[in-house]
């Protein structure tokens, strides 16, 4: 197909991302399949423990589960049938709760997306502005403070940070509920915990980007053209700083998922990260594959968003 029929946006962003999505689906399917098959411990026992809890799990329950689920299916046919199901968008049923995986994921996935988006937006409100201010005056007091604070935030694991926020904002001031999901106020503390972790790094990226832009020839030319410092920053600084920040956002999503799992279990948030960890413990294979696939596709979608934002911000990318 020659290129000029397909609009450039689709050709350079959408198509490669679609290819990546298919790649992720295949990789997740095969990887989780091989890994789960090679996990130690008898699947039937693990599923029985997942279903009935540590008080009720015993050999009788495990044998019943083995009969019920027919776990003796040879490996390759199982993989083949899973891939075929995926094409038909049939994710199968969770071995633990028996509910269709897709229904469980939709509920839990919604909670995680809600939490992740709130965290990312919040981090963009905290990190980059502080980073830009520090970059405008390198070596100033804000720059030094930012270095120490961002190192501090990066070293605090999410659960310690989360706990501090609960103690401070929920117990002492009583502004927000300590945990749980439902009303908007529940979103505040988990999102803030994640956001501070992300902001610590995006502030550094913003600072370095601002440093580079402020020392660039076009910034100096802006001044000698007669523009005030504020005008130079608004017209030439903002956009050129935004490009590296948004590009870095794509990389940051890798660390977001770790934070999400911890924050979800600390704040009793019914998210997908939390569900994935339980699924792996309980060897709930369809749930693992479904969750991993959806999280993988979430990544691909988020990265596509980042790509489109980059194209909008930096016309050079569009013309490449």
């Amino acid at each position, binding site marked *: 197909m020659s290129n000029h029929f397909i609009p450039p946006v689709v050709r350079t962003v959408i198509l490669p991302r679609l*290819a*990546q*999505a298919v*790649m*992720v689906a295949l*990789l*997740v399917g095969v*990887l*989780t399949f091989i*890994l*789960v098959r*090679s*996990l*130690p411990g008898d699947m039937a026992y693990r599923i029985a423990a997942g279903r009935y809890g540590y008080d009720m799990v015993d050999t009788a329950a495990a044998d019943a589960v083995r009969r019920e689920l027919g776990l003796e299916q040879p490996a390759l046919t199982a993989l083949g049938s899973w891939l075929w199901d995926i094409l038909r968008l049939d994710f199968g049923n969770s071995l633990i709760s028996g509910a269709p995986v897709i229904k469980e994921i939709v509920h839990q996935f919604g909670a995680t997306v809600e939490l992740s988006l709130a965290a990312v937006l919040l981090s963009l409100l905290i990190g980059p502005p502080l980073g830009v201010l520090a970059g405008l005056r*390198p070596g100033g007091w804000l720059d030094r403070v930012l*270095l*120490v604070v*961002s*190192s*501090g935030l*990066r*070293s*605090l*694991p*999410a*659960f*310690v940070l989360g*706990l501090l926020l609960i103690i401070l904002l929920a117990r002492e001031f009583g502004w927000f509920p300590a945990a749980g999901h439902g009303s908007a106020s529940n979103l505040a503390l988990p999102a803030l915990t994640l956001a501070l972790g992300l902001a610590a*790094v995006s502030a*550094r*990226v913003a600072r*370095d980007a601002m*440093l580079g832009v402020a020392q660039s020839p076009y910034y100096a030319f802006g001044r000698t053209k007669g523009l005030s410092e504020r005008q130079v920053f608004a017209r030439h600084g903002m956009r050129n700083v935004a490009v590296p920040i948004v590009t*870095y956002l794509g*990389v940051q999503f*890798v*660390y977001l*998922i*770790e*934070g999400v*799992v*911890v924050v979800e*279990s*600390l704040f009793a948030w019914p998210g997908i*990260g939390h569900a*994935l*960890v339980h699924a*792996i413990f309980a060897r709930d294979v369809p749930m*693992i594959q479904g969750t*991993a696939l959806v*999280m*993988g596709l979430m*990544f*691909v979608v988020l*990265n596509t968003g980042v790509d489109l934002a980059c194209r909008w911000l930096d016309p050079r990318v569009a013309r490449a």
Partner: protein
Amino acid sequence: MAADLSLPLVAERSFWSTQRIIGVALLAAIVAFAFVTPFVFDGSPTRQSLRNVLGAPTVLEPLGYDHLGRSMLARMSAALRLSLGLAFLSVITAAVPGIALGILAAWKGGWTDRLISLVADAFLALPGLLLVLMFIAIVQDAPWALYVGISLVLWIEYFRLTRSITRALVLSPAVQASQLLGFGPLYIVRRHIWPEIAPLVLTVGAFGAASAIAAIAALSFVSVGVRPPTPELGLMMTELLPYYHEAPHALLQPVVAVFLLILSLNLIAGSNSR
């Protein structure tokens, strides 16, 4: 004589800026604490005394006791040795393939480049945590498995960085000149590419190590990570979390250790730190 003789050798912004000196000093102090303490202090990281659980620091035990009455000083130095060693391991297991593939992709270009990049993107899209969880579930009882699991995600940063640098270099006249002079690819990597990449290995390594430890802490929190009683910074944070009210000093020690580690690596990495 020609008018434009070289200017006297003006020191290019010296490598040893004050920021970097503080960073190296801090890192040296941490490493010294980790490796010297066993000789100076003979406490064992696993001997318990259930009588003085969560005891406050005393002269005998400068860092106090943990929730099973074990010496925090012994555990902290052992944990730092393990964490530093394994963080280093995870950075190496990420750096070596990352850089090698980065150079290969940039050098060959075309299909090899597109293929490796697609795999890297797919790996990036895969939730890193899933890889690590799976990897640990198989290998079960080995802290090193955790760190290698984490490097499965870390190598991508190295790959992308190396690829972009090498791609610019491969087209540069310097490399063309060396090839014309008869030098082979190995020489070009050693003399042209490696010097440009080395400082970045430090920067990415610094943050790789920090995120490795943070990942272990997260995994231990969902009771997957390192197996007790191994002294490891991430696991200690999780174990001491419930006692945040009774013995904040115990919980803060691993957190402060990681903070100093990240701060020192940040300072060393210098201005282009991430």
